[in-house]
């Protein structure tokens, strides 16, 4: 009794002491607690408690060597996808933040556009591009580069291509939002102190952008772990990943205890990976409180990456030493230096990446005007019949409206809840950061098929299935972690002294947050809101479970038809969405630039 009283007292004391972060964290904790953790715990407990307390399901799952093979493949695939995304996405993000405004806007648009073509349509577009008699093979054969069509599809290559394609926008957007927060004065200062462009990049810019690399890498990695529609559609005869296996248990054999076991194992291994990478990469830094960006930059460089800095120095010294002995033609050296700093070479790479991101759209738009009923490319003739089919159909139009409504509501809810939580994590105590960060990221790590079943169970009891509220809640669970990641990474780069200054000038905490903190992270808020909207707009699996006849969203509508037969109507829907995106994007961009001009 006494001890519990004591525990209670210390808990309340802790809460009182951390009042602000606790309050900020409360909405997220409530949302995820009630609608994610409790149902998830109920489902996962099946692995231990069905029918009575037992380890039999774990024995069965772990005793089967096939499952270990599948687990290893799942992680290998996610690792490859993450590395490719970072390697290709970093130069593009760098170009975007350092380019002139209109170039940056055009590049960003190319990145974002691919988002608005539905997940399912994008996957089918790759089939048209990579097929045995697909666009690329026809081109190669016409050019005489190959006599027989290459095997570009239904193997690991096509899975990698499609997954990198789907996850690249996340990578680039997270990286740019962090890079934007890096004061360019620092690199200018380094240059004036005699740092070469190469040194400047590797010693100053890159370490400052490291939080973004880690955030983007983590995001892509955990997303990639949960993929199953893409590997299932584009993989070869041997392709099998753990989420596909879980889907088999949930929908195929209805062996939910085993599904729960597989999900628990995937979750546990993911958490181990996460903690190990934390230990080595120090991703805590992502959310560690800083004494102002400039100061933290020096301390970052001095302490946590000193070995790294020494390596860079050594490499620079080596290059210089070699350079002094072997006399490069002057032009070559200059070119090499420029290339290393994101010059022509990197821009060339980035342009190829942009072409890669845009190519499915270049396929989809012509197909939407096709006279053929199949996804033929190039289209044999032109017609508007697929647009007519879209606008004439109540089902398509009302599904579009439903998706927009749910998407906007989800964006607003998760933006409010997620930004508050991010603020609590960045400014709160280290313990709160550690625990809070891991709990908030959990919805991203859990395979969506598991959350869907767990949530369906709960919503069925609460009579919420077939309501828009159910969709908003379900989508917010996935969107809140996204918002937290993006906003936290941006808050990280902000100078806390501004807040102190405001407070010392008499501003209350709420006024400080409203007038100092929020405006300074506005770009990240816009990006986060966009992400949350898109995550909801393109969500298939959760929606399939919690939507009903009255709340069909666009992906559900597409999915119900696409499993039976594909017509260019889906290409028409996607083309309309692309046009819609360009309009919205142009609107937001114009508003932002007007705002900046007024600010000046």
């Amino acid at each position, binding site marked *: 009794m006494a001890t519990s009283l004591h525990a209670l007292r210390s808990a309340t004391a802790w809460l009182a002491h951390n009042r602000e972060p606790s309050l900020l964290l409360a909405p997220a904790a409530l949302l995820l607690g009630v609608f994610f953790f409790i149902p998830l715990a109920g489902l996962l407990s099946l692995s231990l408690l069905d029918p009575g307390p037992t380890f039999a399901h774990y024995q069965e799952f772990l005793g089967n060597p*096939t499952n270990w093979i599948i687990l290893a493949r799942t992680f290998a695939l996610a690792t490859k996808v993450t590395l490719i995304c970072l390697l290709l996405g970093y130069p593009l993000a760098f170009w975007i933040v350092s380019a002139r405004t209109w170039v940056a806007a055009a590049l960003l648009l190319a990145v974002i556009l691919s988002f608005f073509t539905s997940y399912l349509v994008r996957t089918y577009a790759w089939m048209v591009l990579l*097929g045995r008699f697909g666009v690329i093979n026809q081109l190669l054969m016409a050019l005489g580069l190959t006599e027989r069509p290459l095997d570009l599809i239904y193997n690991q290559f096509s899975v990698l291509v499609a997954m990198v394609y789907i996850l690249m926008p996340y990578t680039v957007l997270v990286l740019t939002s962090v890079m934007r927060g890096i004061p360019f004065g620092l690199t200018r200062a380094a240059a004036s102190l005699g740092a070469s462009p190469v040194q400047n990049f590797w010693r100053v810019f890159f370490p400052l952008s490291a939080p973004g690399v880690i955030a983007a890498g983590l995001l892509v990695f955990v997303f990639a772990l949960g993929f199953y529609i893409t590997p299932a559609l584009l993989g070869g005869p041997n392709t099998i990943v753990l989420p596909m296996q879980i889907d088999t248990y949930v929908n195929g054999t209805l062996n939910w205890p085993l599904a729960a076991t597989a999900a628990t194992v995937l979750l546990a291994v993911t958490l181990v990976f996460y903690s190990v990478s934390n230990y080595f990469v120090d991703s805590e830094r992502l959310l560690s409180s800083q004494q102002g960006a400039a100061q933290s930059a020096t301390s970052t460089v001095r302490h946590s990456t000193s070995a790294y800095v020494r390596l860079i120095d050594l490499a620079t010294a080596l290059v210089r030493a070699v350079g002094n002995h072997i006399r490069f033609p002057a032009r070559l050296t200059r070119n090499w230096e420029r290339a290393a700093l994101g010059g022509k070479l990197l821009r060339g790479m980035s342009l190829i990446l942009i072409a890669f991101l845009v190519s499915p759209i270049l396929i989809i738009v012509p197909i939407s005007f096709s006279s053929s009923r199949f996804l033929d490319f190039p289209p044999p003739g032109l017609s508007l019949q697929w647009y007519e089919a879209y606008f004439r159909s109540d089902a398509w139009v009302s599904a579009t409206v439903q998706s927009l409504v749910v998407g906007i509501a989800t964006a607003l809810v998760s933006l409010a809840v997620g930004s508050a939580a991010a603020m609590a994590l960045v400014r709160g105590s280290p313990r709160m950061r550690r625990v809070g960060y891991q709990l908030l990221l959990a919805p991203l790590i859990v395979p969506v098929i598991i959350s869907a079943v767990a949530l369906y169970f709960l919503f069925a009891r609460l009579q919420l299935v077939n309501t828009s509220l159910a969709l908003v809640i379900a989508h917010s669970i996935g969107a809140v972690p996204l918002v937290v990641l993006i906003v936290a990474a941006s808050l990280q780069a902000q100078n806390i002294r501004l807040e102190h200054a405001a407070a010392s000038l008499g501003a209350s905490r709420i006024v400080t947050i409203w007038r100092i903190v929020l405006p300074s992270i506005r770009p990240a808020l816009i990006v986060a809101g966009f992400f949350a909207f898109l995550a909801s707009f393109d969500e298939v699996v959760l929606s399939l479970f919690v939507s009903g*006849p009255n709340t069909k969203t666009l992906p559900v509508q597409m999915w*119900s038809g696409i499993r039976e037969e594909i*017509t260019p109507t889906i290409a028409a829907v996607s083309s309309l969405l692309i046009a819609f995106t360009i309009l919205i994007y142009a609107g937001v961009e114009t508003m932002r630039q007007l705002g900046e001009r007024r600010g000046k």
Partner: protein
Amino acid sequence: MTYPIINSGRPTRRQVLAGMGAAGGAALAIGAPGILRAQGATLVVVSGGGVYEEAIRKAVIDPFQRETGIKVTYVSPAEEAKIKAQVDSKNVQWDVVELSRPAFRPDAHKYLEEIDYGAFDKETLDNLLPEAKAKYAVGSYVFSTVMGFSTAEYPADKPRPRSWAEFWDTSKFPGPRSLRACANGDPTTVEFALLAAGVPKDKLYPIDFDKAFMSLDRIKPHITKFWTDGAAVNQLLSDRQVAMASAFNGNIEYLKAQGAAVDYQWDEGELSALHWVVLKGAKNRDAAMRFVSYQATAQAQARLNNLIFYGPLNRAAFKYIEPKIAAKLPTAPENIDKQFFRNLAYWGAQSSSGKSNIEVLVERWIKWVAS
């Protein structure tokens, strides 16, 4: 679940207010018998979406509502996992669902109501194929998984594959192939592997798994893709991604009608029935039983199968189906004997290991595919 359904290509017309009807259904059901009206019964019928929904509304749901006065809310898609979730959580919202497998699971008694065959009229009962009359389910229609091939690869003046043994013969018929994945419990690929190994079609059951997977080892290097959705195999065949594939008869018929260079043949096709089931604890059990017996009548089955390329399970339905269409249906008298029925009872039954045969199949399949 995948619905092997044919698409007429027109967009689905969803009744936007269908769900609102669920709330106001009682007041609107003027023609309903008093007892049903008093209960405010709105029967919730669940099956496939898209064009199948359009067909079944026209052929079965609308006439059922007119003739019985029972108001129907149509929901799609049907998912077996949702049946489990609803019954387990004791919140049963669906009444009657069309699917192939749940009635044959060992735990079917926990999830489904026994079918009340006493409520069927004698003519319907006599004409229903035995495969349609299960303890917990009534058959609705039959689709066939047949051998489809590209006519660009195998034109009419050259030999075409006529059996699964020839499908396996890659020297006589070169070209990439596709078969259906067994990961979600579909057994066609294993059955075809046994046929290719020389097992006669009436001796397939009980399944010899070792023999089947040895046979599959021979064809695996020539498989481009194990398909899971009907749309995927349409795309594979019409794009010439593969030269031949197992596929739903209706899909290939549709591709042919659209001018794609594909064809198929009935020999050694696998017939599989979809069934209507009534959920345990369904709120409108009696109306649900009326619905399942109504859809089994020759007239209702004929109306439905005039719109889609799948076969009725009521033999008398062919009296009302145009002969030109009948020739393209898997259960037509001239086609049915070339094929064999999937043994749903076998797949749902327990094997010696205590698992159902479907689970054994899925486990072995995943092991075989991953290695």
